[in-house]
């Protein structure tokens, strides 16, 4: 029987008002232990006020080899940026 503890990804909110950010990963038998281990491994010096743990096998990641078709379509859409629109200098507060 494969008794190796699965891998978990750890997300920590540093303080209220900020989003949870990926801090790293660790091994734990279940979600409860993952939370407790994350507390010990990633927040020994008040680095966080909230922790999320997600089993790594539940994450679907994009493949960098497909970055072309995935992200390039955004590159030629300059009209999504405010500087694309030319206005006379007299227009203020815009």
């Amino acid at each position, binding site marked *: 029987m494969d*008794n*190796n*503890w699965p*891998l978990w990804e750890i997300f920590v909110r540093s303080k209220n008002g900020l989003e949870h950010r990926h801090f*790293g*990963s*660790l*091994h734990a*038998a*279940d979600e409860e*232990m993952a939370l407790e281990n994350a507390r*010990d*491994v990633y927040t*020994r*010096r008040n680095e966080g006020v909230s922790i999320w743990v997600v089993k790594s096998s539940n994450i679907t*990641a994009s*493949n*960098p*080899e497909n970055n072309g078709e995935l992200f390039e379509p955004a590159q030629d859409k300059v009209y999504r940026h405010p500087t694309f629109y030319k206005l006379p200098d007299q227009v203020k507060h815009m």
Partner: protein
Amino acid sequence: MSNEQIKNLEEIFEARIARDEKIEAKDWMPEKYRKTHIRQISQHAHSEIVGMLPEGNWISRAPSLRRKAALLAKVQDEAGHGLYLYSACETLGISREELYQQLHSGKAKYSSIFNYPTLTWADMGAIGWLVDGAAIINQVPLCNTSFGPYARAMVRVCKEESFHQRQGFEIMLKLCKGSKEQKDMAQDALNRWWWPSLMMLGPTDAESVHTEQSMKWKLKRKSNDELRQQFIDQTVPQADLLGLTIPDPDLKLNKQTGSYDFGAIDWDEFWQVVKGHGPCNKQRISARVAAWENGAWVRDAAMAHAAKKEALKIKIAI
């Protein structure tokens, strides 16, 4: 992929690193880059884990509650550093089990400094001051290394490492201001840890086989000899402040370079320890293997408990 295509990819890859771009785990990388990183990151992780053993010896023998709390926190940090680094290493496609296996079988190396014994309390001071001092010099440049997960782990490690060195120096300072016996103890610790600390920065540039490639990949920013000189130059004035004598009769300030000239390092001793013949190599690995094996039933029980809880959840859901 044809050889031509691979060569092309390698050129693009090297150019990315030269532009200071970071490489992330899922990016294409040359096999040699992957292997070198697995070797270096795992060696680094193993050093953190084995590094807990010489200090663990003194947790229950610390002279005060303050010292005990600090040492305990330092050893806990080292466990943490080992874990950051193991998980950075695992992103390269090697399992934790395999990494442990390599450590336990002796296939993977760890820093040879941890194969020296910790004979007195002053050794806790000397280790923090010298060994962590040398480690910081080695590690700070790695915060900018090309492999993203390693660089991020190192930022975290370096932030925490400074307390380790300061608490060590404070131990030395206290001993040096104490009784004659206490000061002698501090001097004795310096005598034993000085040369191994210099060796810790790696073989001389002429003997160092990986330097050129490592520089290109930003696994190294300065050569071993440059780092060693930096360590000596910053440490000698600290020893003066403690009123201790560095055990090197050839150590002398070179007025022209502004750096300290120093005596010959016993590299035979270094290679003996690396090859497994240091004073504590066997003891360290057997302590590590025993900890892993004796903990097996706990790991199994935790998995059995997790499976039982999961089954109960499913039963309730049905």
